[in-house]
């Protein structure tokens, strides 16, 4: 019951935010995107046990696809944006399906290292391809509405994406899909020995992750207003690493962990950039070390160890006869 009240209050606050703190709309839009990053990363990294450092590829693909559609389709702004988001999502899923059939055969560290190269390779490809502006990047079209309308519009678009992503994850984890990818995380050989179509589940999971990241990329390209191949689209050293950290900070393999992790991480990061300018990267590095040492199981994992009774029933021991007296 308390949970429902908190959730409603949070949602109401999120909806009212642009009116309450209009100056922070773009900042909050980035925060919402961070939540999408962490949620989609955790689908593989937390729930399925496949630590991917290549998810940024789907984000970049979505961003570029949308920008190209917006550039080449001569329709109204909302129409091209909508089509661009759809094309971005579809392309990202297609890339995930193709990459997945090859990469998801790798296990453990081999998968992590294999995916590490993907983001870098994608960034290099994009910066050499004239069709997408090569190293010069791309500029998505200007938002046509009134002044100040742009920030509000994209804020609500981001909020919508976060809600849809969260709901989708929640729904997936509650069913057989969630059980299957958890089984793969815990013992993939056993899952195979039980007849599970593991490759199918793994590829599907990566495609779901890519779907939401593709849409996120399409939106973020428009928010930032300029697409640099290495700094915005295939930003492996910033977004790509942060999505991993945020999920770990909040608690890998939990539904709320990535959300909490993204909020805490983004707030800390912005505080560093504001109050420790010049030392912000050092402070961020220090934060990462602190996360790994003191919160290896994440904020939610730590809370679960401390107050296990708050996280559902665990044992139903029958009371021994002599104790009943």
């Amino acid at each position: 019951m308390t949970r429902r009240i908190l959730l409603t209050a949070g949602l109401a606050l999120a909806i009212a935010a642009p009116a309450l703190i209009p100056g922070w709309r773009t900042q909050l839009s980035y925060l919402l995107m961070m939540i999408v990053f962490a949620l989609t990363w955790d689908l593989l990294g937390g729930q399925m046990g496949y630590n991917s450092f290549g998810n940024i590829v789907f984000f970049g693909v979505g961003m570029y696809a949308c920008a190209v559609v917006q550039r080449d389709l001569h329709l109204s702004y909302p129409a091209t944006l909508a089509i661009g988001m759809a094309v971005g999502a579809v392309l990202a899923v297609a890339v995930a399906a193709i990459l997945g059939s090859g990469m998801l055969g790798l296990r453990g560290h081999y998968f992590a290292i294999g995916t590490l190269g993907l983001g870098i390779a994608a960034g290099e490809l994009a910066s050499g391809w004239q069709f997408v502006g090569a190293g010069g990047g791309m500029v998505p079209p200007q938002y046509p509405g009134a002044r100040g309308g742009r920030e509000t519009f994209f804020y609500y678009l981001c909020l919508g994406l976060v809600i849809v992503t969260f709901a989708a994850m929640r729904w997936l984890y509650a069913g057989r899909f969630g059980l299957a990818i958890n089984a793969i995380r815990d013992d993939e050989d056993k899952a195979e020995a039980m007849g599970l179509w593991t490759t199918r589940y793994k590829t599907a999971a990566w495609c779901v992750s890519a779907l939401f990241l593709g849409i996120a990329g399409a939106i973020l390209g428009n928010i930032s207003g300029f697409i640099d191949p290495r700094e915005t689209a295939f930003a492996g050293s910033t977004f790509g690493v942060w999505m991993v950290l945020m999920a770990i900070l909040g608690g890998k393999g939990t539904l709320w962990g990535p959300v909490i992790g993204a909020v805490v991480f983004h707030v800390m990061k912005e505080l560093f950039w504001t109050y420790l300018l010049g030392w912000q990267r050092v402070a961020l590095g220090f934060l990462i070390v602190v996360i790994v040492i003191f919160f290896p199981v994440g904020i939610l994992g730590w809370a679960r160890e401390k107050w296990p009774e708050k996280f559902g029933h665990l044992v139903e021991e029958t009371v021994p006869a002599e104790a009943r007296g």
Partner: protein
Amino acid sequence: MTPILEVKSVRKTFGGVVANGDVSLTVPEGKIYGLIGPNGSGKTTLFSCIVGTHPIDSGSIKFRGEEISRLRVPQIARLGLLRTFQQTRIYGKMTCLQNLLISVPPAALAWRSMLARPSAAEVRKAEDLLQFVGLHTKRHLRAGDLSFGQQKLLELAMALMSEPRMLLLDEPTAGINPTLINGLIERLRRINAELGITLLVIEHNMRVVMGLAEYIYCLAHGELLAQGEPAAVKRDKRVIDAYLGAH
């Protein structure tokens, strides 16, 4: 009697080590057969060969008349031939109940039910099976927190949840306390009689295997040493020598 499993002249080597030299055995449908032999005699390797973990060098393995020696592990599992492991394999971070809910028959794991919720009937069946192996009170506990013996029982329940036609059990009573063993033997008999699941059991505990199996194969040094009714195998000089080290 129609054989459900036919192993013919199976050979499996690892480098220069001959784990299975030329092993042939047959298990008829609906029976409980035993597989014994000293440590390192190739029993577990034979299991791994049958279920496809180790592709065999030569020979033939037929399950219900179909050649399976070239199939992969999940494909064989989907035909209804499952194994349990000597060192238990369970999904450690999931609860016992979840372990069972994802062990549903393979048909329930295909494309169209990928997004399905576990049905009420499946949950009931999972709870019944946990009751059957005596883990019902621990159903919401993480499987990894169970003791070794309890994990063995959980693994057995998972195998049953999948409704196989045949089960290969690798030392089902190892690590289980003596009072529970009698109950387990009783349960294995019921699995066989009530569910019609054929069992092939690797077992070191002679009392268990002699009481449970109606026919026994004995391996030593990767070769089939003896076979027959339990009483006959127990008296076989070669079997006694193999166990006592005269071989």
